[in-house]
Structures are given as structure tokens and as C-alpha cells.
């Protein structure tokens, strides 16, 4: 059945929509959009933020963290691809949790997603303001008011998202491709291929300044190399053939990021003393500055700007899908489950999340916002191994058809669980109190959901997949 071609599905769906006066999200995206959504959200991590891992444990610690986090995310991508190629609906991991573990888990996962993405969006907007301020300062203007630019970035992207998903993700595709190419160009241009290379690895890379504890601590920001790639699943209800496009886009995305992360690390540690790199606001831009080429500086400046915009854009897209899906199931007020009849977007969710993003972008410090985002992401990753183990147990391989089956089960799930434990410890080393505050928040919200909110939810109706009855029930 997966051989059905896209147009046939489209025609069928359109016919169903007109026949019953129903409006749903539009199936218009291809694998390239999925790639752009995943990589677009994450690539900003190479332009800023990953380098705090260098500060936490030195250059080699950051590389080890980069690869271990890469391993973690490869597990995430494989597990996600299998489940999502079967559970193809907006809401991504939220919908997976609802079908596989249960409503309360789903509610929590939905909130992780919304907060991870909304906080990341706020962090991106803060960075846009900072970048424009930097450019203004370089042209001799001191004391720029960053607020209008932060607001403009969020408003423009919200408007784009409001107007339709195809334009939104095509925009992401273009600017993400530019930002990724900028990293490649920087690497090639500074390499010895063209004669004199400014790289000084032998003299700049030192031993581990904190020993192995620093390597563990670096995992905190090592996640930042890839955080958000799991967002590809949010597009499930809008891609033309989810069973093929989602695994392809997600796995291509993680490969792109592994390359980008390693190149970024190599260029940066070869150009900057680690003490500087560990606290730099815009490491790739600094690397371009040190290369001494004006062209590279402009290119990486543009790359940084594009990466932040692509990330914020994808975040608005993903957070609103998750919020919308929860509204549609009455986990949140049903009012949010509305689809724009012309643009076919979850417009009320998009509008609602704008002021929230603004509150955090204008009112909270960047490292707090980033930590909130990382923690919510980490909670999602901890949920995933539980999810896949239960999925395989309740619906073994011969009971339902999967678009993609991940290999070596349950090894990736167990590896992912161990890596999550390491990441929890790393966050505990610097931000233990936030960790406990966040978990207290989720515990309170869970109790609220279980004892109050859940009464507004239809029971059987939330199980929408055409699957057989799970084993053991």
C-alpha cells in the first residue's frame, strides 16, 4: 500500500475534505523540507552555543562530547524514524506517546516539545538582536535598541508560518542551505588546500584542563550540536509520503549535522585558544575574523543570521504543531485545535505562542533560556527509549507494517538511556537547581492533568491509528 503515489493520496484527501466540509493540514512537503526543518532548527548550534562545551572541558572534551552526543542523536533519529514512519500525525513524539505509553506521558511529552522549541525560538531571537547590535557597533553606532529587532524576527517568522507551511519550509530550506554551505566554505578556504593555512592546531590544542570530569560536563552543551533534529516528526501530517520522507529527511539531517559539527570543531579549535572559544558568543564568525578575509567574515556573518532565523522558523512550526495536536485532543482547550481554512495552518496555536516567545526573549537571560530548552529536550530523549521498547513489545514487528525498522534493537534504546543519564549528570554539575525546579514543574503539571484536565478528554477517540489491539491488554 505504501506504493500509492502522492497525487492519488492528495486527490483522495481533497475529495474527503470537500465532501464533509472538513479542514485539515495540507500535505505538500517533500523530503527536502523535512531535512530543512530538522537541520534548520539545529544548525544554529554550530554557529553559537556548542563552544560552551569547550569552556566546560577543553577542546578535546568538546570533540568527545560532540561525538557522544552524535551517537545519542543517531539513536534518537533511528528510533524516531521507526515510530514516526508508523505514527504519522502532527504532534510527533506527543502522538507517539499517546498511542504507545499513555495520555499522561503524552501530555508531558507535548509540553517538553512546546517548551524546548519556544525557548529555543526565544534564544534565537535574542541572538538576532545581539548580532544586529554587533554589526551596528562595528559601523560605529553604540547603544542600539535590540528590542525592535527581536520582536521583528519573531513577528515576521510567525507571519510566515501563519501564511502556510510550504512557503515557511521552503524559506527554511534556502537559508539553511546557505548557512551550511558557509561552514563548508570556511573549512575549505582556511584549509591548506589553498596554500597558507591559518590553522595552528599543534600550538593551540591543549590537554584536558579539567580532566575527565570536564568531558562529562561538556556533554551539557554537546547536546547543543544537534538539539532539535527530532522536530522533523512534527511535519508528519504535512509531508506527502510520511513513511518514506520522514526517515529519509531525518537520517540525512543527522548525517549533515555530524559533518557540520566536526568541521566546525576542527576549524574553531585550530584558530582560537580554548579559553576564548569557550566563552565566545559567535565562534564561527570569530574564526572567519581570524582568517583575515573580509569575504569570509561577511559570509559567516550572513550564515550566523540565516542559521538563527531558520532555527526560530522551524521552532515556531514545531511548537505550534505540538500545541495544536494537544488542543485537537482536548488535552488543552479545544479552541487551539483549529486549522485556518485558507492557509491550512494551526493559526490559533501560532498566534498564542508569539507573546510567550516574546516574554522569554525580552525578559530572561540567554543561558537560562538555553538550559530550559536543553532540559526539555533531554526529557524527550529519555522518553524515547521507553517508547521504542514498549512499542516493540506491544506491537512486535509482525503485527503492523513499519516504513522503517531500526537495526540492533534494543541496543540503540539502551545506549540512548545511558547517554541521557550522562547528560543529566552534566547538567546537574552546572545547573542542578534548575533541573530540580523544572522537574517539580512537570510533576505539578502532571498531577494537574491527571486529576483535573484529563476529564475533558475523550477516551477511545484519542487512539486514532488503524492498529490492532496491543499485546498484553
Amino acid at each position: 500500500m505504501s506504493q500509492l503515489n502522492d497525487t492519488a493520496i492528495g486527490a483522495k484527501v481533497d475529495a474527503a475534505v470537500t465532501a464533509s466540509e472538513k479542514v485539515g493540514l495540507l500535505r505538500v512537503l517533500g523530503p527536502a523540507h523535512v531535512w530543512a526543518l530538522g537541520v534548520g532548527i539545529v544548525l544554529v548550534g554550530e554557529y553559537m552555543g556548542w563552544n560552551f562545551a569547550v569552556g566546560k572541558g577543553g577542546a578535546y572534551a568538546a570533540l568527545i562530547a560532540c561525538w557522544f552526543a552524535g551517537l545519542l542523536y543517531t539513536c534518537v533519529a533511528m528510533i524516531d524514524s521507526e515510530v514516526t514512519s508508523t505514527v504519522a500525525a502532527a504532534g510527533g513524539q506527543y502522538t507517539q506517546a499517546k498511542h504507545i505509553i499513555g495520555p499522561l506521558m503524552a501530555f508531558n511529552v507535548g509540553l517538553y516539545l512546546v517548551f524546548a522549541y519556544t525557548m529555543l525560538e526565544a534564544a534565537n531571537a535574542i541572538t538576532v538582536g545581539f548580532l544586529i547590535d554587533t554589526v551596528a557597533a562595528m559601523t560605529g553606532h553604540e547603544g542600539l535598541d535590540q528590542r525592535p529587532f527581536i520582536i521583528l524576527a519573531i513577528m515576521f517568522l510567525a507571519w510566515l508560518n501563519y501564511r502556510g507551511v510550504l512557503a515557511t519550509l521552503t524559506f527554511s530550506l534556502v537559508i539553511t542551505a546557505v548557512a551550511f554551505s558557509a561552514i563548508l566554505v570556511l573549512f575549505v578556504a582556511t584549509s591548506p588546500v589553498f596554500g597558507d593555512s591559518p590553522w595552528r592546531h599543534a600550538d593551540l590544542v591543549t590537554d584536558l584542563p579539567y580532566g575527565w570530569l570536564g568531558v562529562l560536563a561538556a556533554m551539557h552543551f554537546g547536546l547543543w550540536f544537534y538539539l532539535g533534529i527530532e522536530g522533523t516528526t512534527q511535519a508528519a501530517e504535512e509531508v506527502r509520503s510520511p513513511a518514506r520522507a520522514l526517515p529519509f529527511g531525518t537520517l540525512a539531517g543527522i548525517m549533515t549535522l555530524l559533518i557540520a559539527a566536526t568541521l566546525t570543531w576542527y576549524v574553531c579549535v585550530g584558530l582560537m585558544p580554548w579559553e576564548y572559544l569557550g566563552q565566545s558568543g559567535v565562534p564561527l564568525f570569530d574564526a572567519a575574523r581570524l582568517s583575515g578575509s573580509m569575504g569570509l567574515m561577511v559570509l559567516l556573518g550572513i550564515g550566523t543570521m540565516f542559521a538563527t532565523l531558520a532555527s526560530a522558523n522551524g521552532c515556531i512550526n514545531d511548537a505550534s504543531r505540538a500545541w495544536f495536536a494537544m488542543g485537537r485532543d482536548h488535552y488543552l482547550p479545544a479552541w487551539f485545535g483549529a486549522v485556518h481554512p485558507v492557509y491550512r495552518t494551526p493559526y490559533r496555536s501560532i498566534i498564542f505562542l508569539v507573546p510567550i516567545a516574546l516574554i522569554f526573549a525580552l525578559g530572561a537571560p540567554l543561558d537560562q533560556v538555553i538550559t530550559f530548552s536543553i532540559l526539555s529536550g533531554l526529557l524527550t530523549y529519555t522518553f524515547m527509549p521507553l517508547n521504542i521498547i514498549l512499542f516493540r513489545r506491544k506491537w512486535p514487528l509482525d503485527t503492523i507494517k513499519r516504513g522503517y525498522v531500526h537495526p540492533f534493537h534494543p541496543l540503540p534504546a539502551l545506549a540512548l538511556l545511558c547517554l541521557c543519564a550522562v547528560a543529566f549528570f552534566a547538567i546537574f554539575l552546572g545547573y542542578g537547581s534548575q533541573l530540580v525546579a523544572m522537574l517539580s514543574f512537570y510533576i505539578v503539571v502532571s498531577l494537574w492533568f491527571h486529576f483535573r484536565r484529563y476529564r475533558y478528554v475523550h477516551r477511545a477517540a484519542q487512539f486514532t491509528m488503524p492498529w490492532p489491539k496491543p499485546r498484553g491488554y
Partner: protein
Amino acid sequence: MDIWNFAEYAAWAVSGILAIIIVLDWIRIDTTYSSEVLTSSREGEIEAMTEEHRL
């Protein structure tokens, strides 16, 4: 007053215009269509049509 001051005002103005466009369209849609139509999207409808989980 230099170009950056103008840029600040321009950013405020464009943000405001975008906000107005979004809110006006939101009001227009909410008053034109009934809430039954707007919230008629259901999860998994397409899967039920295109995939049958039989092996």
C-alpha cells in the same frame, strides 16, 4: 540620527504592521467560519484512508 535609528523605527513599524495583519485575518476567519468547521481536523484520518495494516 543615523541609519541605525531609522532601522529601529522601521523594525518597530514593520512588527506592528505584521501584528495587525495577523490579528485582522484571525478576526475575519473566526467570524466567517463556524467553530465546527475550524476545529474539524482529526488526527489519523489520512492514515485510515491510505494505509491498511494488514500483512
